Structures are given as C-alpha cells and as structure tokens.
C-alpha cells in the first residue's frame, strides 16, 4: 500500500490547506444534523413512558458523552503518533482536541446531574460510570495544564503525549463501567443486542445529534489545529507566502 498520501499530512502547509478546505464540508452538515436531531428529540419525539419529558435530556447528554470519549481517543492516538514519529502536525491535532473534548465531557457531566436530580434524587452519586467520566475530564484538564506549564513546545508535546497515551486506559473503563460493576447508571440502550431499547421516533433524532456533534467536533478541531500549526510555524517561509499572497486567507 502506498502511504505517501498519509505522509503528506505531516507537512504543515499541506495540512493547513487541506484542513481549511475540509472544514466547511464538516461544519454545514454538523449544523443541519444538530438542528434536525434536537428538533426531532425535543419537539417531535414522544415522552418516555417512565421518565416523561425529563428523558429529553438524553438528546444532548448521550451525544456529548459519546463525542467526549471519541475526542479523547482521537487526541490520544494523534499524540501517540506524534510521539513515535515526531510529527508536529499530530501534536497540533492532539492539542486541538483537548478543549473541545473537555467541553463535551463537562456538558455530559452537568446534563447528567440535571437528569440525575429528578430521576435518582441526587445531583451526584459515586457511581463507576460517573466517576470514570469525571476522571476523563481530569485527563483533559491535566493534558491542557501540562501543555500550558511547559514553555518549550517540543518538551510540552512529548510530556503531554505521554499523559494522553496513558489516559487512554480510561476510555474502555468508562464504556464498560456499567457492565463490570453494579451501576445506578443505565446500560447501553442504543447499540446493544436486539437493537435499540426505544422506538425509531426516539433513536433516530438521537443518532442525528450524535453524528452532528461528531461533525462539529472535527470541524472545530481542524480550525484549532490550523491555528496551532500556523502559530508554531509563524517564522516559516510557507506562512510568509500564505499571508503575503495577493489573495488573503480567511
């Protein structure tokens, strides 16, 4: 197999140009999917037979949880690739994932609290699923804090990549926490044996929001990664060519 196409992404000017072209193709579907999914979930879907309208929190809580975990996975894999092959574009991508992933994880935890209070009678319980998700948030914050604390960019890349790679162990723990331990949190209801535990009028909007948040994540992440690549290479000749070209980039 020819891997040249992949290696080219290690080149900052190539990454900057291609990422810039991809972003609108992610951003517009993201907006449409999120609007359609939230309309379908919050307005059109029937109330839950047990939880009534409180179950509508699901349409933001579950996608936020999914994208939080996905962000961490992308961040850890990218950081590990950057560590092994010393690709600064990969470190830029990993750094771009962290704040977005942290936002989604925080949204998941806070909407979970807003759901837990009326349903469980408590804002927070020390449950395996909740605690492992909180640990995920701490890994994101730790990763950003470590990067911020080291002035030398290459040392910051390496140290934070080690932290990100170690933290990947937490991702399967979050996923299987409801299986391995007795948990107050409900188990998988969407992707499970026997199909979704809800009618199509509920799972279709949920899936739309999941895809919407996923597209959103990649769009915002690429914008951040481009800014990071530009910041690192600000003395480079390609940046000069780019910014002094007759047609200015947006």
């Amino acid at each position, binding site marked *: 197999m020819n891997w040249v196409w992949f290696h080219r992404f290690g080149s900052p000017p190539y990454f900057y140009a291609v990422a810039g072209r991809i972003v609108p193709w992610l951003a517009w579907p993201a907006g449409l999917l*999120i609007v359609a999914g*939230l309309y379908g979930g*919050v*307005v059109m879907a029937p*109330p839950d037979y047990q939880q*009534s*309208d*409180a179950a*509508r*929190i699901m*349409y*933001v*809580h579950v996608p*936020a949880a999914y994208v939080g975990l996905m962000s961490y996975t992308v961040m850890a894999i990218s950081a590990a690739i950057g560590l092994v092959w010393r690709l600064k574009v990969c470190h830029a991508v990993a750094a771009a994932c962290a*704040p*977005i992933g942290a*936002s*989604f994880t*925080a*949204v998941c935890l*806070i*909407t979970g609290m*807003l*759901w837990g*209070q*009326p349903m469980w009678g408590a804002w927070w319980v020390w449950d395996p699923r909740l605690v492992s998700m909180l640990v995920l948030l701490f890994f994101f914050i730790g990763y950003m804090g470590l990067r911020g604390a080291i002035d030398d960019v290459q040392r910051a890349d390496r140290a934070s990549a080690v932290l990100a790679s170690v933290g990947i162990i937490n991702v399967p723990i979050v996923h299987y926490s409801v299986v391995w331990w007795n948990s107050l949190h409900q188990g998988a209801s969407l992707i499970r044996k026997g199909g979704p535990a809800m009618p199509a009028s509920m799972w279709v909007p949920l899936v739309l929001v999941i895809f919407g948040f996923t597209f*959103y994540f990649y769009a*915002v992440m690429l*914008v*951040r990664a*481009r*800014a*990071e690549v*530009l*910041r690192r290479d*600000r*003395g480079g000749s390609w*940046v*000069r060519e780019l*910014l*002094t070209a007759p047609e200015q*980039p947006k």
Partner: protein
Amino acid sequence: MSQFLYMSGYAAYVWPSIGLTLALLVFNILWARQLTRDAQAEARRRIASEDAS
C-alpha cells in the same frame, strides 16, 4: 406552547441542559475563530518586523 415549555414539570432540568450545550457549542466556535485570528496577526507582525529590519 406553554405545555411544551413546561416539559411536564421538568422544565428546570431540560431547558438548562439544552441551553448549556448550545452555549458551549457556540463558545467553542468563537474560541477557535479567535485563535485563528490571533495566530494570523502574530505571524503578520513577525513578517512585518522581519521586513523592517
């Protein structure tokens, strides 16, 4: 309409959840745009100072 906003009594939990989510989505877009502008401005300053010297 008020029936819809009432959310069978769970309005105080449902609407803040959705509001917070949308607020963070908007915030992350603005933040990423600001980073792009800052990076471009910084690079332009550097080019200008190199050209001046």
